[in-house]
């Protein structure tokens, strides 16, 4: 490739930000000062340079968090450093919502206006902000700050929520919840912020918790405390019994993936372990972005070493030597916790060249997303790690054969990995005894909306929807439940009649519902469901990657149709409009490339199936 960079390269400040990530440029060929003595007669580049493409997102993050936006000269400098064509880098930078390619003030409040926060008054909050600070996206006062609307920030239990970013020499990124307009204005004024308190253990008094037992109890920053509470016993056990036995135990546990697709984890691991192509990769999918989901955030903030240990076990079993933990860009506290955990584990010899003296080598690289729900789709996540637009790949081939960097890859959700620890220490058979025949083990549910005590709750599979709502204190004020959203924006609405339904993979499937990522969002009789549906439609329109026609255009047509039904300006009769809504949904479900488009109509269609739920 003939790299053609037109125009000036970055300012000294922008260069310093990029160099802090990539190191100083080695020659004039990659953006350094030209030295005719050493650079004059030899080019550099080739595969070694182009292999650094996967540093594109970290480099873009560096400029974004230093300056507050990514100028064309800064983009050009990154392109020189990584041998990426400027048009491609521009395509990547404009794909992710946390990057700005036009000037943006350094201090930004990202205010969540998604479904759970709307139930807690987010729209009124945005209205207040518009009146007091000006419209979203417009510079405030001296131009140093602005506010933007944001999709779900994973703080639904504390709604309404906001994320504050301050670009500068010492960039600040903190989330806050609950927030009000005066609090947001004050933070925008100061540009400072203190981190939200650590997550609370809602069921801390229960002694039999497996996944949440350390959350809110054990210091998440201390490796010693983690080990003192049983941490790293699973890895020691895994090394003692060997990789094949670990695979057997995980298979015997009948553990199913907790990210939404419910694929048997043992089968996935065994398939990767059996691949002859090398190297193998382990990827932890911590790009939790499904509206209403915050369980992975709680695990990462409250028990980060568990994820690190479980990834190490996954790598040991599948013969991988490098892992990537891809965390969503809007989780600053979780990112900080995980970074600390990886560093401490490495310092203690629990990551690195010779883990626990066994000769097994494994390390973890943390990658931060940049505001794209689609990157939770596993192949889009690979593309993002590789430094590309998060566009899902066509399947087959599946990641177990051709995954990250084209190599066999095991990719697991944070909660899935958390289950691995007790499977290895207590055995797969004993894990399989927990729960039901088709759904084994403990499960986390994210309770939000109109419940007295929103939060993450752990139960054994088999608990009913009603049990979970009771655990969360029921509906406040004695009001009646109007509907419940199961599984998030990509899930389905169910009615009161579903309260007795056990929340297992098999029972929800039989009922035409889904567990998805474990979202239980309760709407009481006061909720404006038309507003909720329109926000869900908007979410998919905003988050579609745009690659395939059914999702790119279908998500727009679905949103328009709901808008005109709400405005009473139908194109045809109501019946014809509802047939059209179903046909849009079916084409998206049948013909889209990935799960985003395939489920973009799920919740909306389910709402119309429930008698009397929406009056449109």
């Amino acid at each position, binding site marked *: 490739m003939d790299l053609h960079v037109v125009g000036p390269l970055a300012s000294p400040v922008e260069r310093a930000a990029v160099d802090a990530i990539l190191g100083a440029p080695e020659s004039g060929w990659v953006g350094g000062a030209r030295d005719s003595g050493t650079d004059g007669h030899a080019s550099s580049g080739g595969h070694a340079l182009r292999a650094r493409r996967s540093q594109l997102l970290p480099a873009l993050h560096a400029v974004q968090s230093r300056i507050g936006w990514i100028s064309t000269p800064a983009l050009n400098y990154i392109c020189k450093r990584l041998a990426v064509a400027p048009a491609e880098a521009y395509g990547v930078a404009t794909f992710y919502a946390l990057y700005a390619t036009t000037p943006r003030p350094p201090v930004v409040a990202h205010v969540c206006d998604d479904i759970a926060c709307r139930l807690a008054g987010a729209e009124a909050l945005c209205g207040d902000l518009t009146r007091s600070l000006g419209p979203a996206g417009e510079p405030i006062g001296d131009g140093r700050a602005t506010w933007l609307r944001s999709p779900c920030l994973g703080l639904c239990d504390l709604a309404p929520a906001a994320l504050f970013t301050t670009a500068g020499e010492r960039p600040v990124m903190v989330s806050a919840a609950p927030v009000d307009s005066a609090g947001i204005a004050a933070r925008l004024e100061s540009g400072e912020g203190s981190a939200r308190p650590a997550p609370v253990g809602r069921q801390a008094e229960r002694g039999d918790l497996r996944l949440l037992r350390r959350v809110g109890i054990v210091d998440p920053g201390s490796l010693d405390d983690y080990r003192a509470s049983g941490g790293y016993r699973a890895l020691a056990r895994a090394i003692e019994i060997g990789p094949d036995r670990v695979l057997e135990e995980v298979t015997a546990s009948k553990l199913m993936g907790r990210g939404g697709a419910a694929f048997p984890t043992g089968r996935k691991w065994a398939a990767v372990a059996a691949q002859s192509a090398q190297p193998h990769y382990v990827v932890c999918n911590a790009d939790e972005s499904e509206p209403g989901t915050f369980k992975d955030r709680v695990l990462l903030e409250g028990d980060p070493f568990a994820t690190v240990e479980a990834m190490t076990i996954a790598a040991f079993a599948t013969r991988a030597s490098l892992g990537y933990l891809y965390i969503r860009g809007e989780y600053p506290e979780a990112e900080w916790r995980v970074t600390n955990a990886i560093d401490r584990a490495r310092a203690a010899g629990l990551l690195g060249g010779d883990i626990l003296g066994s000769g097994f080598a494994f390390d973890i690289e943390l990658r931060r997303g940049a505001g794209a729900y689609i990157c939770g789709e596993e192949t889009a996540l690979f593309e993002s790690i590789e430094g590309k637009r998060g566009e899902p790949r066509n399947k087959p081939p599946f990641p177990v054969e051709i995954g990250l960097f084209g190599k066999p890859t095991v990719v697991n959700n944070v909660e899935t990995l958390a289950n691995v620890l007790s499977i290895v220490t207590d055995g797969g058979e004993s894990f399989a005894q927990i729960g039901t025949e088709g759904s084994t083990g403990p499960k986390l549910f994210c309770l939000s909306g109109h419940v007295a005590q929103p939060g993450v709750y752990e139960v054994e599979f088999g608990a009913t929807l009603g049990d979970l709502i009771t655990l969360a204190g029921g509906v406040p004020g004695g009001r009646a439940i109007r509907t419940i959203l199961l599984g998030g924006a990509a899930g389905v609405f169910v009615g009161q009649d579903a309260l007795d339904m056990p929340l297992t993979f098999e029972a929800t499937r039989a009922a035409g519902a889904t567990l998805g990522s474990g979202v239980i969002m309760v709407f009481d009789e006061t909720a404006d469901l038309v507003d909720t549906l329109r926000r869900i439609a908007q979410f998919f329109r905003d988050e579609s990657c745009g690659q395939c*026609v059914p999702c790119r255009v279908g998500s727009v047509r679905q949103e328009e149709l709901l808008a005109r039904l709400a405005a009473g300006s139908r194109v045809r009769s109501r019946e014809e409009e509802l047939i059209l809504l179903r046909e849009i949904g079916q084409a998206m479900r049948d013909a889209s490339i990935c799960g985003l488009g395939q489920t973009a109509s799920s919740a909306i269609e389910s709402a119309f199936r429930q008698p009397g739920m929406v009056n449109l």
Partner: protein
Amino acid sequence: MTDQVTPNATSDPDVLAAILRSPPARASRPPGPPPVEAPASVELTIDGVAVSVPDGTTILGACGEQGIDTPTLCYVENLTPVNVCRVCVVEVAGSRVLVPACSRKVEAGMDVQTDSERVRLSRKVVLEFLGSSVDLSLTGPITPDRSIAAYAQRYGADATRFGPPGQPSAAGERDRLESGHHHGPTGDATAATVAQPTKIDNELYVRDYSKCILCYKCVDACGEEAQNTFAIAVAGRGFDARISTESAVPLPESACVYCGNCIGVCPTGALMFKSEYDMRESGTWDESAQTVTDTICPYCGVGCAVSLHAQDDRIVKVTSPTDSSVTDGHLCIKGRFGFEFVNNRPKV
């Protein structure tokens, strides 16, 4: 290849000396490629008919052999399929969702339905999605039986179901759209489109992204599938995704080398020779009055096959056959655009 011995094949001085004394006879022609075993055949069922095709065939290819006409938009034979338009989807027994015929390879025992209710509905709605958001007036093969209009009729597609088209964007407006939150529809019963003014910023070709279905063909041809220039990429996200140069600069400020290979693979007329565009604007473009002459590019020694499209004794467009073993349908700036000297020859 066995009769080719290179000096460093051995370090034994005696052997080397023997080779130097009597070198092996020179092959009279370059060695051919090693023999390739014919691929095994795969048995499958298409629309209830048992079919046998070579391993590695796509479902689209297998359907073609059966005489089944499958609509395609983002598929061209000289580029790797990207399966993004989804108009070629078929139903495969056991698959939860429909699969793209253009890229999916046949497998033994596959049971393919090309005209089931699900297939017909998806194809209809996809054609409606495109018809309601993009100007398809020049899209696709325009032979009467395979035009977009004929497919729309076959599947009963009616793009007006979503309401009249919304306001077109101003020049450059779509180029500035940021990912993430957008201003939702107002409920005015119109359908959003990608309509925008044509980009005319150079003398060789124009870009009318009102006609762009985002099939990625131009990006792939500009990038690693042909030209390796990477002057354009997809920018933005979702419905706001668009083909863009770096920072959306005009072409003359971009990395573009004007090979025109993007025009060669564009299936919708969004990318067009300036000569063709000007003639269409003035109403003089008339394909029925054009001749196409296959010849060899007169410039360098590569010998690229070119097809000269001429109207009124003037060359109006240059293409290259996609089945040419020399070009694969791709040319450089000289072959593609360097024909003005012919048009400017003095009249005798």
